[in-house]
């Protein structure tokens, strides 16, 4: 459903961050994107969630050539990709409930039609009691869970998470990973960027290894 072919990426006139990156994400797959800090993981994810366009090569998403997309076609595609940003990017003046409801509000749904969905997702991440809390009053792990809830509330077929376990304790990290695995079992394609190779080993999933801007693939147990 997402395919990269010989993708190159540079910021402005800077050096090429990604070189000849080719891979494909299948529906329902669980994939880890690994590599040391500065390897270009975030850059690659930005291409996936359409925050950046490649400087060369071809990206196709849900059967559409990204280079040929008109600006008005972007929102519909972006709604099919849930994103957990490395820095959460919660809206500070909104409550947890309102943050999680954001994608539904953007999709034009009425508040009473999504109330239960949002509550259900918040319960699922274990924050059903913190509906009214604003991000400033939440711990790192709680913010991360709000970010995950927001990314999946509209049930996108693809979920992308950038270092979701990076800034929290291992116990919370394991708990979040269980959420991702559960989502994946329900059919969502999950792509997780991490510099923690241990995660990959525990889950035995497919791994895209970024090094010096290039990709090395190693097959997981389910996809090869």
């Amino acid at each position: 459903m997402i395919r990269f072919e010989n993708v190159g990426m540079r910021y402005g006139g800077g050096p090429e961050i990604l070189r000849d990156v080719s891979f494909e994400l299948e529906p329902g797959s669980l994939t880890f994107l690994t590599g040391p800090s500065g390897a270009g993981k975030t850059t690659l994810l930005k291409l996936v969630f359409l925050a950046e366009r490649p400087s060369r090569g071809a990206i196709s998403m849900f059967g559409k050539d990204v280079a040929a997309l008109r600006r008005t076609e972007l929102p519909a595609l972006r709604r099919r990709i849930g994103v957990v940003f490395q820095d959460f990017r919660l809206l500070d003046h909104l409550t947890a409930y309102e943050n999680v409801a954001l994608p539904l509000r953007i999709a034009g749904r009425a508040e009473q039609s999504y109330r239960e969905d949002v509550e259900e997702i918040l319960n699922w991440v274990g924050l059903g009691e913190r509906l009214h809390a604003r991000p400033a009053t939440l711990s790192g792990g709680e913010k991360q869970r709000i970010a995950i809830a927001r990314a999946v509330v509209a049930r996108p077929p693809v979920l992308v998470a950038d270092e979701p376990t990076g800034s929290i304790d291992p116990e919370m990290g394991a708990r979040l990973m269980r959420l991702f695995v559960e989502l994946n079992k329900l059919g969502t394609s999950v792509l997780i960027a991490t510099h923690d190779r241990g995660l990959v080993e525990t889950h035995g999933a497919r791994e895209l290894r970024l090094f010096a801007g290039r990709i090395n693939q190693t097959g997981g147990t389910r996809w090869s």
Partner: protein
Amino acid sequence: MELTEDISPARPTPLFPRGGGGESALFGVMAIMSFLACLTLGLALGAARLAHAWERGLSGQATVQIVDAPNVAMEAQLAGAIAVLEATPGIATVRPMSAEESAALLKPWLGDADLAAVPVPMLIAVTLDPAVTLDAETLRARLKEAAPGATFDDHSRWNAGLTAASATIAWGAYGVLALIALAAAASVVFAARAALQAHRDVVDVLHLTGAKAGFIAREVQARFFALGGGAGLAGVAGAAIVAVAVALWAGTEMPGLAVDWRDALWFAAVPVVAALIAMATARFTVSRFLARAA
């Protein structure tokens, strides 16, 4: 479920937090603009009304003066002139003045001279119908035929200059209104851009969550609509205070320029226009901003 009742406020929280776009500064600027717009509007309406009134003949009065003409008796001239006047649309009443009245009018010029010795012109007092525009040229031509010694004076030569001046003031004021609107729009452009820059993070999140440009624009323009409307109201309130003061102090002496309460509707339009200018400009600015950001 009990909990659901107070999960969200009655109205959804605006996605852009308050502040960041120099909002109070914009409020002040828009309020001052609205105040100036009200004053200018008052001037425009007053001048237009004055021009209109003068065009019609300020007093609604005119006179026909008949002097001796060769070969026509004064009485025949008088009768002919009255017949023509009464048949002319736009003339409400026709009243020949008595010799005493005419003499009284002429007295300042003639002093105590013996009036019997000079040929005193006959005067006919005419009141004009304000609802009908008088065709003075045709009337003059027809009067000449019926009474060669008659001249019609509707003070229009005197009025023409004033009418032109008032019309110029009115059009000038409309021009100033347009400039005020333009300046208000320009200040909204800056404020909207500043707000978007200040809340760039929110714009990015909305974008990446699949918000269309129209959705983001609606969020922003709703804020500016409220801000423009509020500032407009403040401006009108200020202008109303000035208007009351003018009505109290100068109103009776300057009937044309004084505040006419029928104009209230125009002033009520000022906050609405301010709100619409702010909204439309903000929408335009956001669309431009997002088109560049993609």
